[in-house]
């Protein structure tokens, strides 16, 4: 596996572009490690997603979050649960800078523990 600069540049260019066609959800994890772990599982399962800075409207934390189409919400939650990834928060994007929390009950209802 190469980590060369060319490789990185390539990755940067082909990085996911934001998915704005359908309503999106944003999941907050506990740190960058878990964001990248989530990314690995989503990639492996062919689920389009974007790694984004945690939106200021959600938290003042300087970390990253994962955004994906709300149509994939159930599958994403299932995948995260199967990877033992605990969720710190789940939101629906209502507008460019507006996010509505999806309640804990709704999350746990979707996650088979």
């Amino acid at each position, binding site marked *: 596996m190469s*980590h*060369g600069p060319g490789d990185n540049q390539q990755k940067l260019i082909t990085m996911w572009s934001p998915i704005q066609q359908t309503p999106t959800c944003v999941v907050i994890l506990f740190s960058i*490690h878990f964001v990248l772990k989530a990314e*690995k599982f989503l990639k492996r399962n062919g689920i389009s997603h974007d790694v984004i800075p945690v939106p200021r409207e959600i938290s003042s*934390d300087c*970390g990253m979050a994962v955004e994906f189409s709300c149509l994939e919400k159930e599958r994403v939650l299932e995948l995260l649960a199967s990877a033992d990834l605990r969720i710190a928060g789940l939101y629906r994007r209502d507008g460019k800078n507006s996010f509505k929390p999806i309640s804990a009950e709704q999350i746990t209802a979707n996650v088979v523990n």
Partner: protein
Amino acid sequence: MSAKPAPIYADNAATSFPKPREVIDTVSSVLGSMSLSPGRSAHQYSLECSRLIFDTREALADFFNCPDSSRIAFTCNVTEALNVGIFGLLGRVLHPGDHVITTALEHNSVMRPLRYLEKTSGISISILPVSGDGEVMVSELPRLMRDNTRLIVANHVSNVTGAVADIEAIGRNKGNAVFMVDAAQSAGVFPIDVVSMNIDMLAFTGHKSLLGPTGSGGFYLRQGLSLRPLKMGGTGSNSETEIQPDFMPDCHEAGTPNTLGIAGLGAGVGFVNRTGLAAIREHEQRLCRLFLESVGQIKEILVFGPAADRERAAVISLRVKGKSESEVAQSLDRDFHIMVRAGLHCAPGAHRTMGTFADGTVRFSFGFFNTEADVTACLTALEIISKN
């Protein structure tokens, strides 16, 4: 003027040299291609850098069969990892009056923290003895176990004699104690499976047989076990709170990490995986047997540690009759361009058991990149030195 022969490096137990080409290339390309502060900012470089660290973490988790890569934290070497482990248990698992078992072959990176706790925190220590052939007597473990034995620390491979401890047997007999393994010399040569070996904490260093750069290392900590962090500070996570995160790996990774070293370590692990642990071990053991068989024929030389037919690492301690250790090492370096190490190798206990305290030994340690020609050159040099 005669040409100076190529130097021979036989001090791989201190740090491995040379490093695989891909380790060098990774370090230099990473240094030249992005900023190296992971998980702090949200820009592309920071994210790419977090990915490098994530990839190394995942590679190490696979390598040691850790069920969850978030249970691996990076440190700057195994000394730091062992310090986090030993001091971090204090007040959580280890309390005044508790008992710890360790072995007679520990490095000072284990013995000094333990002796400090013995002196300052009322911890008592028992030492697993070593047999005549230099191997830790794991059979003595049940006899040493007490109701309040909370911690067992064992060095997997001795950096003085190359003896391999049966950590699987220790893991089987650890009872309720936390089992901590110093894998400084073994990781990258001998198979380690934290699950089947029942290891609660595995401390490793990146710059020896994992073939990474110095300044890299870390530990695996079993799920359910927590350690008080030795350092607190910025982690890039939970920035809104002034309380150190309590989850792995962030709780033990305050401060900007050695991204370069960790990326290089990832490349080192990649090299080891591609080459195969068995092939690496076979090569080193062949060199070791070749050395031991011939050195045994030089009558002025006394070799310590397990015999050639035992499973052992290519770390060989010896003495030349009538010559001091430093004199031998200096002559090897100056007259033959052979680099070895002389002295106690930071493990005074091992020398006490062998009767080589306080002068120590001359230590040859061969690595994957040494050749049979290197070993032959070492033998020729030793023969000349011992006859002079």
